[in-house]
């Protein structure tokens, strides 16, 4: 189990944002050596995009960068400098695979196109994955995965009938493309093993995304039907939808120590007049009126979810915690404990509970019977209006309302568990917290691996979606920018200290 399956494979990545980085991350998780060529003059915009660790910005603190670059080494080169290009080529000459996802034509213009790279490594496998491919009239049209989600048809088929289209979550093709990319690279490696030939793979993210629409494309070709958005409905199941569930109590820990912090707090709460009152303007005043202040604070927090409050406070570097267990949890928190004597307001305040949802799907009559049993066989389920799939679909709105009246009494976890135990498909619409901390199955599989990052310390990133019975896949931390400059130049390329210093002085190594 100790050996990783792709050990020995060397990959050089010229990647940014998500699609390219996730491609090389999968290869790294499977044991390939991945060197990511970055730069300080031209920083991967993902490094300068939040969320940041603890809300504090910095090139080594971006959550999604650290997620999608786990397991790689980083060298910072200036690719506008010929010496930077020379080092990049040296790294390619010892590599098996090059992955890049810059805009169409960029690598070629830098002198790093396939024809250039095969001169330094004749059997190199190079994969380019730009938005719309390296050829054609739109090859170099600028954009990101968000725009591509619209272009490739997913906006149009997401949302409610008769309403404006809704964007799916995030840059959707970025979730699709890395899978196709790794598949193509591994297949090309197999071909190279058999024949000795490398090759160039020109992958278009647009085309990859269309593969996820195939049946709808054929429907248009054959039946001239243009697929549109249908909400959450399905022709094969009823009930089929998402139902609101009861939420648990939530708290937020807030601590205001200095008058500056109090001013910010006042600003955030300025719709309530009491914060301007003089008796609250000093720490002494706030402490003297503690119980009144806490009550008023809670009136404000009760109107907001913990997420809203943490977002608001964190923007101003105010200490804030989302809590599951109220005061008990706050007492265990070192930062809050330290502030306890010098801060007011200071404590755990309960918040508005959040949206919690569970999807439920009933496909067969047997499942419908089980479903009715779980919800306690209320009178309405005996109505002929709901006895068949067809009649349930005809009365979907009424049925969904009645189901919602039941689900609201239970937590999303309870709804899912009760339904699944009775053989009815149901699942929580999971948040980041659910995925990482609550979902028992993902925990069991260990999808999120704990890593140790030189700057931000412990964090977690998702490993491979597949488990191999006889070999190991495992991540390492994402690199800080240029973390492996020395190691790569000296140990891998055999340069001397003097040479490296010279390159840094000249600015080729950043």
């Amino acid at each position, binding site marked *: 189990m100790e050996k990783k399956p792709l050990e020995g494979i060397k990959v050089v990545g010229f990647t940014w944002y998500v699609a390219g980085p996730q491609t090389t991350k999968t290869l790294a998780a499977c044991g390939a050596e991945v060197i990511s060529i970055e730069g300080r003059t031209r920083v991967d915009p993902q490094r300068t995009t939040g969320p940041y660790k603890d809300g504090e910005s910095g090139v080594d603190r971006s959550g999604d960068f650290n997620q999608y670059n786990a397991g790689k080494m980083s060298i910072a080169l200036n690719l506008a400098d010929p010496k930077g290009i020379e080092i990049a080529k040296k790294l390619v000459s010892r590599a098996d695979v090059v992955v890049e996802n810059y805009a169409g034509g960029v690598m070629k213009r830098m002198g790093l196109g396939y024809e250039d790279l095969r001169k330094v490594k004749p059997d190199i496998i190079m994969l380019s994955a730009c938005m719309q491919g390296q*050829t054609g009239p739109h090859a170099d049209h600028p954009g990101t995965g968000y725009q591509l989600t619209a272009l490739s048809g997913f906006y149009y088929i997401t949302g409610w009938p008769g309403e404006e289209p*809704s964007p799916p979550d995030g840059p959707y093709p970025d979730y699709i493309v890395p899978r196709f990319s790794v598949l193509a690279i591994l297949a090309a490696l197999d071909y190279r*093993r058999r024949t000795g030939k490398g090759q160039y793979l020109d992958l278009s993210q647009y085309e990859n995304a269309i593969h996820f629409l*195939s049946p709808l494309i054929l429907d248009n070709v054959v039946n001239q039907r243009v697929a549109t958005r249908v909400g959450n409905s399905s022709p094969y199941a009823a009930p089929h939808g998402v139902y609101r569930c009861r939420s648990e109590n939530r708290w937020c820990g807030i601590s205001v120590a200095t008058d500056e912090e109090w001013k910010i707090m006042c600003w955030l709460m300025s719709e309530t007049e009491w914060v301007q009152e003089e008796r609250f303007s000093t720490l002494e005043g706030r402490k003297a009126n503690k119980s009144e202040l806490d009550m008023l604070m809670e009136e404000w927090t009760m109107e907001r979810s913990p997420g809203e409050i*943490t977002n608001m406070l964190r923007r101003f570097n105010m200490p804030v915690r989302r809590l599951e267990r109220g005061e008990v949890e706050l007492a265990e928190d070192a930062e809050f404990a330290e502030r306890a004597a010098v801060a007011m307001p200071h404590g755990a305040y309960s918040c508005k509970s959040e949206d919690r949802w569970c999807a439920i799907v009933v496909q067969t009559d047997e499942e419908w019977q089980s479903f009715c049993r779980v919800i306690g066989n209320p009178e309405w389920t005996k109505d002929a209006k709901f006895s068949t799939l067809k009649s349930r679909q005809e009365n979907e709105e009424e049925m969904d309302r009645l189901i919602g009246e039941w689900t609201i009494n239970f937590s999303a976890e309870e709804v899912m568990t009760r339904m699944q135990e009775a053989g009815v498909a149901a699942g929580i619409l999971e948040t980041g917290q659910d995925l990482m901390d609550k*979902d028992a199955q993902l925990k069991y599989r260990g999808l999120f691996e704990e890593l140790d990052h030189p700057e931000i310390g412990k964090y977690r990133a998702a*490993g491979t979606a*597949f488990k191999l019975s006889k070999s190991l896949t495992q991540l390492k931390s994402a690199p800080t920018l240029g973390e492996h400059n020395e190691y790569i130049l000296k140990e891998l390329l055999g340069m001397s200290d003097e040479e490296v210093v010279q390159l840094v002085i000249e600015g080729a190594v950043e």
Partner: protein
Amino acid sequence: MTTKERIEGMLSPYRVLDLTDEKGLMCGKLLGDLGADVIKVERPGGDATRNIGPFYHDEVDPEKSLFWFAFNTSKRGITLDIEKAEGREILKRLVKGADIVIESFAPGYLDGLGLGYADLEKVNPGVIMVSITPFGQSGPYRGYKAPDIVAWGMGGQMYSVGPPEHPPVQISHHAQAYLHGSVEAAVGAMVALFEKQSSGKGQHVDLSIQSSLAQATYMLTASWDHGQTIRPRQDPESTREVARMQRVWPCKDGFVMWFFFPGEAGKRRNPPLIEWMDSEGMANDFLREFDWEAFGVPPTPEELLEETPDERRQRLQTRREALEEPTGKFFMSHTMAELMDGAVKHRVTLYPLNNTAAILESAQLAARGFWAEVEHPELDTTITYPGAFTWASETPPGISRRAPLIGEHNEEVYQQELGMSAEEIQSLKQAGVI
């Protein structure tokens, strides 16, 4: 009919047995498009997946499912009842000659038939078995049911999607969740195939559809991991100006996607649109002189304390209207096609909200030769399909044949390749095995 002359592909030497339903069909399709010899093993009478629409000319018929067509290209097809003893023996004979077996049954089903990985490994130690299930082969949710919307929601893809007046919404039509799982399963198969070169042994690849979704999110797990924050569907209290800006804009004949980028990116990406509007007399001084670099950049506490939240909200609202009003008018004066052409010409990060019809008319896809024309002789027609998922200089992938008819290659596989006699096949047919 003999086996078609195969063009050398990346995966030509390999044989794949595909026992999947809609959860895994695309995995075998992709390996087939890469040149592998993929045999779809269906139950006698044809797989249930053939009943999934849409259908050719809307005729509900297991030989006319467009869903089936789409995800079974480049496969041959045989029928086999693996629940019968003879069927199991035949499957084992096929496994002897196979490199990869893909399946998507509920965990434990094949073990119950004596066809689990432990059994197949004895028949062929080199075989790689790929299992595609919603949650994986083991663990607390292994027995849970997961139609698309359940897998999608539990993979984190749904919580933050859709307008706030409705429940969260999935992507319409066929299951997206299963496609992610299927392609990732093909990755897993290739990783195991690569490893086999050094160990000489096959192994079991246990793919979780939920994991494949949970590993592909943006600002979702990162927000929780780095900031202990749950990203809400919509943040009405947001002080971030860009979060409130419009993304979907109506135009003459549909919608386009455009947003004003903040900060550094805004300085680069926003002016080309204003210049384009200006060239048609639709910009104004406010737009021409706008300071993009400062736009959407979070204020410092000092800046913030200069005005009350109400004043700030009011000021941003006024500014937002001043930006969006002329822009909206400009888009409304053009069609989607005009806007796409103009965007390319002026290098504006604007894209149409395509539907399938617009995708089929795309000049870019036509220029790249993306579409594949696939013959369906029994329907007396040729159908346009999405073609190769990547262009490749040596061994381009592509559709080698249309999806198989029910039992189309029974004779070819059983008689010519397994060497069964015509009588043997006849008796298996009578016994309902094939």
